[in-house]
């Protein structure tokens, strides 16, 4: 081939390439579609459209929340920075138009005009079937229901076509709030039963692939790992008709590209960006960036209290004085977190959770405590973290490692693959680790029941057992159920004080949930589940 031919072929190629590169001319119909469509980009997408399914992931919860209705939801109040924030204590009707709470039961009157996406009316038998399903399928949904003492199908009674009664097994303050979380959603029972089989009596295979609810949106197309397309249900009656007609949710694995899409104005909303990006976007002001503390979410350093050296409270306190708290908030979180340390020494304990500890970085004090415990020369240990959250966990562990080295404590960093993390937690053998916990139900006694109680749940990652602690937690739960405020306050203060004195886990910070969106998007609401509620969003 001659040089000339070669050059010709190259320039021909370049011309061919340039042709489709020209900016796409959008027809006006497409532009209209764009103004009524919300384009969301995120790293991961749902693996199941039904929260009752086996192993449904967190993005799947978002689909469930928007495509199904529950009996009740929460009112909104003004949160930090004036952002609408769900009101833990106030409920609003969703499918139920009226709720009467009796001594040992709650009665719900259903809306008579609510219909499922296929047009069949929503009746009491659908509600019962759905709640039965939630307490029976096992796994996460059943677990979540049990958190509100909802465990048996007999608890859900059909009174008439449009009335359902929920009987309480025992008095529990969390029963009503638990009916407002994502799990007790109402499913089109006739449709699903038609598609169920003997092997799969609850029709989980069917609802995995399509939504069978009455919610404000319905999934019209789902390509796993690529996109979810949702259309508005124009016949939705459980609230004001949403403004967004269509939601396109695309999975974009690269965080840098998600940011580029936002900066170029192609995507409307993104979450799951690195903290650094959120902080930069916040300061350059081209987008709305919402950062709100995660209700009862705490990142902590846990210590296995069943084995030396961490069975000694003095060692644990020494570590609590050796944490590079402020460095972690500045360098790892880029300021997007509330400190959970350094409360003034004379500050009284509050009846609230989370609240900061009185620990702060003081290496001299840490050294003294360590010497008192008989470890003046330090010791060797391993700090483990979940690689799925390496972006935060890895620099955090490196900072902790550096800081502990000053006490003569040699730490090796153990990176645990995400698929293996829960298995490792369940074994309860890791001596030192960092982890995060946040519950949907935002009550101090709920958090402590899972994280500090001697029944040793998977979240009591430290294997911490203390009869005194159990007494205080049980006391607070009972007091909450009967409404004995004085006893409740005393018990909550008691277990917070004990948790801080014994420090089986060292609270570091309360992280923020961050969402970046275009300036023309409004109506964002913070929910306990921290996912988007499309029903309230407005574009333009």
């Amino acid at each position: 081939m001659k040089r000339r031919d070669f050059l010709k072929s190259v320039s021909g190629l370049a011309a061919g390439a340039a042709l489709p590169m020209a900016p796409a001319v959008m027809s006006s119909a497409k532009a209209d579609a764009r103004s009524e469509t919300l384009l969301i980009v995120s790293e991961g997408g749902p693996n199941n459209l039904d929260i009752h399914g086996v192993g449904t992931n967190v993005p799947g919860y978002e689909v469930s929340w928007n495509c199904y209705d529950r009996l009740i939801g929460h009112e909104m109040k003004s949160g930090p920075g004036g952002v609408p924030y769900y009101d833990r204590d106030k409920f609003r009707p969703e499918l139920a138009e009226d709720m009467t709470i009796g001594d040992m039961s709650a009665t719900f009157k259903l809306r008579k005009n609510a219909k499922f996406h296929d047009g069949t009316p929503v009746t009491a038998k659908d509600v019962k079937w759905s709640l039965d399903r939630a307490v029976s399928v096992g796994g996460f949904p059943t677990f979540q229901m049990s958190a509100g003492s909802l465990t048996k199908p007999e608890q859900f009674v059909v009174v008439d076509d449009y009335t359902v009664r929920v009987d309480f097994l025992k008095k529990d303050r969390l029963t009503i709030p638990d009916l407002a979380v994502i799990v007790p959603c109402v499913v089109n029972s006739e449709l699903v039963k038609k598609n169920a089989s003997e092997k799969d009596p609850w029709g989980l295979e069917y609802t995995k692939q399509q939504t069978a609810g009455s919610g404000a949106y319905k999934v019209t197309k789902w390509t796993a790992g690529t996109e979810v397309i949702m259309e508005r249900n124009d016949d939705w009656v459980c609230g004001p008709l949403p403004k967004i007609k269509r939601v396109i949710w695309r999975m974009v694995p690269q965080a840098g590209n998600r940011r580029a899409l936002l900066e170029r104005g192609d995507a409307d909303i993104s979450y799951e960006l690195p903290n650094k990006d959120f902080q930069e976007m916040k300061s350059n002001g081209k987008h709305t960036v919402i950062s709100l503390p995660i209700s009862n979410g705490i990142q902590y350093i846990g210590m296995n209290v069943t084995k030396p050296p961490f069975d000694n409270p003095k060692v644990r306190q020494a570590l609590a004085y050796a944490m590079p708290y402020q460095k972690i908030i500045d360098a790892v979180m880029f300021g997007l977190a509330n400190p959970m340390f350094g409360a003034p020494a004379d500050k009284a304990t509050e009846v609230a959770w989370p609240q900061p500890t009185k620990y702060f970085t003081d290496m001299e004090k840490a050294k003294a405590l360590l010497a008192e415990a008989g470890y003046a020369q330090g010791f060797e240990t391993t700090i483990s973290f979940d690689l799925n959250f390496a972006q935060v966990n890895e620099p955090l562990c490196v900072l902790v490692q550096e800081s502990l080295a000053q006490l003569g404590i040699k730490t090796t960093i153990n990176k645990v693959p995400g698929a293996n993390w829960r298995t490792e937690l369940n074994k309860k053998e890791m001596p030192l680790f960092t982890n995060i916990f946040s519950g949907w139900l935002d009550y101090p006694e709920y958090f402590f029941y899972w994280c500090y109680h001697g029944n040793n749940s998977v979240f009591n990652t430290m294997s911490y057992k203390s009869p005194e602690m159990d007494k205080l937690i049980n006391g607070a739960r009972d007091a909450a159920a009967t409404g004995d405020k004085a006893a409740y306050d005393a018990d909550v203060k008691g277990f917070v004080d004990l948790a801080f004195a014994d420090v089986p886990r060292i609270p570091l910070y309360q992280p923020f949930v961050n969402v970046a969106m275009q300036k023309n998007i409004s109506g964002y609401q913070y929910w306990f589940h921290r996912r988007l509620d499309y029903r309230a969003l407005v574009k333009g």
Partner: protein
Amino acid sequence: MIALIAKRLAFAIPSLIGVVIVTFLLTRALPGDPAAYFAGPAATKEAVEQIRKKLGFDKPLVEQFFRYTVDLAHGDLGSSLTTGQPVATEIRNRLPASAELTLLGLLVSVAIALPLGVLAATRPGSWIDHTCRVVTTAGVSLPVFFTGLVLVYVFYFRLGWSPAPLGRLDVFYSAPNNVTGFYLIDALIAGDGEAFRSALSQLILPAATLAIFSLAPIARMTRASMLSVLSSEFVRTARASGLSPSTVTVTYAFRNAMLPVITTLSMVFSFLLGANVLVEKVFAWPGIGSYAVEALIASDFAPVQGFVLTMAVMYVVLNLVIDILYGVIDPRVRLEG
């Protein structure tokens, strides 16, 4: 010929069986526990056991393997837990996406690398030879995700020439009717010019990324192979007989230099198909590479097994095609079992 092909395929069966066994065992040897992973963050030990039972992971390994092979014989590759879809369907949907991207990338790469290699060989030490060296060295030394990100940054973010890196089509276009699974071809069949343009413009950056990366082996191999052929005696004879330089280079030398190039091409193709994970990640491309890696991270067995098996089958077929091509290019090569 047909008998020979059949014989070759028959020989591939034991290696495929081996692949099935090895991938089965390897996925089981992964450290993660899928039951704990999919039981969710709030699972109790009982909940994990319930999930394990549902997934059939409580059975002995031999029984699990038996079930797997029986399903496999029925063409059922199992279901993915991460995406919730049958693996066979997913691979069928995703393979064309990867193949379309890889083929286009390879086409671009060949269109540049072959002339470059030939020119470099005919004029060793000239500027074009140096260009060839610089381009190929740069191509291999830049990691694909880096090239991809730079291209996105320049052509999408800075210049705005390229569409958003959002997969195979613009968000507001719908895919053409599925015939081949290749959007370019399907759009042409459907006569949908807009979809064709959109699909092509989405393809350019990722294909260019792959081309830059695969340029090096092809260009280097072409150059080396051409150099050795050009110094051989039949070329000297041809030149001495007064044939024009272009006839000597193109008709005689190039054809003889093709064999190693074809081998390299097949290797590059199969390597790219599996290894363009990073490109797929950068461009949110719904291909099989990213699918397999995501499954691996979640210790989701079925897709990993399906992926390895698909790749193994493709290697077998590809090798066969290459062997047949050898015979076409060089009649002296005999296709033997």
